[in-house]
């Protein structure tokens, strides 16, 4: 007789319809489900209750500066790549009240913000996105400065990952060694086959969510099909970036003419940094009442492409678009490694797709490499 729940590290198969039972189990366990759904012509992240709210039968066509949904032949649940939003929407909210202060009898009273934080279950996290979350974990939860707001959101989450079986034209996770297959960092990981889901169990909590799903151990045939589907995503990948010598290449070419050239195209609009799943820059805004007897502080997403972001005492240290693009790219691909021991790029391609004028960082790096000064 098979046990009632699969063990950790096991692979099982469940029927597609059983995913609803997994959703129900999560909700009963107190999780708020968030995951992909179609809104205004794009696959974005939002609250989910039913598996029918997933982008069933939708795929995406991505190109530099272009994104479009199209119908799939079969009603698949996960036949698309990363959309415009990333999980930082929930872990690092775009706008977060931090505290308020009020003057009472000449003294300031500080009141920390009472933000309700749900226990999130993230549905449909891709391999590159798991890497992005791991990078933000390093930034916010290790070392001397730990961000309590991030940690409070991050620690209780449940992750249902999805192994990619297709790649967008803007994907390059193979180059960044972050995908297409997620090896760990999830509670459950689904691979969608035409007839079934193959599920890898990553944790006890993950196993628990398979209760009453009529799961069965995956056969060698199922596992083989799942592996091949994922390998196809890797083979299909159209973009690549050589990474072995990247920091050296960029540091040695800080005066490369390509920076001038890209500055003629870059709008400095900051879209790339906002869609990037690892970009974490924020600003804090203080607003007082008219009498200056009460104020509150809010943290909002900011960007190194915003001029005021690099305004420091004495002036602006990056007054030109050239200097701001160079700062972004060299930080993402080089000095990020010095700072956090890992590249800031996971190869998801969002910055390429969502740049309104289609600037492609893999192309920029290649152009620098082709005519490298050193």
């Amino acid at each position: 007789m098979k046990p009632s729940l699969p063990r950790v590290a096991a692979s099982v198969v469940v029927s597609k319809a059983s995913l609803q039972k997994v959703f129900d189990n999560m909700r009963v366990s107190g999780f708020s489900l968030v995951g992909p759904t179609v809104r205004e012509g794009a696959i974005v992240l939002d609250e989910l209750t039913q598996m029918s709210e997933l982008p069933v039968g939708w795929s995406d066509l991505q190109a530099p500066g272009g994104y479009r949904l199209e119908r799939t032949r079969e009603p698949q649940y996960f036949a698309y790549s990363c959309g415009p939003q990333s999980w930082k929407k929930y872990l690092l909210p775009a706008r977060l009240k931090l505290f308020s202060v009020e003057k009472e009898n000449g003294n300031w009273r500080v009141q920390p913000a009472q933000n309700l934080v749900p226990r999130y279950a993230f549905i449909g996290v891709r391999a590159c996105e798991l890497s992005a979350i791991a990078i933000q974990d390093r930034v916010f939860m290790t070392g001397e400065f730990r961000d309590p707001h991030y940690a409070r959101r991050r620690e209780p989450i449940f992750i249902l990952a999805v192994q990619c079986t297709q790649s967008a034209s803007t994907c390059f996770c193979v180059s960044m060694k972050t995908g297409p297959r997620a090896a760990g960092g999830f509670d459950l990981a689904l691979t969608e086959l035409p007839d079934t889901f193959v599920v890898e169990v990553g944790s006890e909590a993950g196993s628990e969510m398979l209760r009453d799903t009529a799961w069965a151990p995956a056969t060698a045939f199922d596992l083989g099909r799942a592996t091949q589907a994922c390998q196809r995503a890797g083979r299909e990948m159209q973009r690549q970036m050589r990474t072995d010598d990247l920091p050296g290449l960029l540091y040695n070419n800080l005066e490369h003419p390509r920076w001038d050239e890209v500055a003629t195209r870059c709008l400095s609009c900051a879209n790339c940094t906002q869609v990037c799943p690892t970009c974490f820059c924020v600003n804090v805004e203080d607003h007082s009442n008219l009498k200056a007897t009460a104020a509150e502080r809010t943290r909002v997403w900011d960007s190194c492409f915003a001029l005021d972001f690099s305004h420091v005492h004495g002036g602006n240290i990056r007054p030109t678009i050239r200097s701001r693009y160079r700062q972004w790219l060299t930080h993402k691909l080089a000095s990020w490694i010095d700072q956090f021991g890992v590249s800031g790029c996971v190869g998801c391609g969002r910055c390429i797709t969502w740049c309104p004028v289609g600037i492609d960082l893999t192309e920029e790096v290649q152009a620098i490499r082709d005519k490298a000064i050193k």
Partner: protein
Amino acid sequence: MSPETRPKLAVYKFSSCDGCQLAILSLEDELLSLVGEVEIAYFLEARSQTLEGPYDVTLVEGSVSTAEDIERIHKVREQSKYLITIGACATAGGIQALRNWADVGEFVRAVYATPAYINTLEQSTPISAHVAVDFELNGCPINKYQILEVLTALLVGRAPHLPRHSVCLECKRRGTSCVMVLGGIPCLGPLTQAGCGALCPAYNRGCYGCFGPMESPNPDSFAGFLLKNGTPRAELIRMLRGFTGYAEVFRSAGDKLAKTSP
């Protein structure tokens, strides 16, 4: 603050639709505390009683479009210690600056039954073309919380927190997917200063540029990309010559496109 020491605030209207004054009046929850801190000395849309100048802070709505406007703005300036233009008309000439690319006489004949009654200047110009301006607040109309922030900052003695970056950041913060990338809708958002909360893209419309050019716009790249991808030149010019079309960045970008027209 005691009535004697409250700073005197004046609000003047020039050529405009009154929308920015209404934005101030729509500060329903904050209006009472505002009048507790400043004396509304001159604000015809809010109070029939007027007090003599000089005024500590003067808000000016509207552009200069008549000979009387020119005379009047100099008088207003003389009476004002700190002059703030509010809105697209006062700051950039407004939608009525469309005449700056056309024959105003022709407009007058087309619009008015008795053109002889109309006495107007050839061009609609921003307040800063005539007198020194201490601060310019953008928007069509202005964002009521931004005017409150400007007045609060003045009262407290600090710099106001107003974004100068693109509308795109506001789209992303509210979770709106880019309409340019999604549907190829021409959107002035990447060139335009934030402040409206990215209203139009949230309703699947391109940005009209109401808050004027952002801090470091790149109109050449923007226009070149749209032209290459099929936006008709005439549509692009019309887009740039909108509510803040006479602002330097949009004006020169539109003029350049018109000049290089094949």
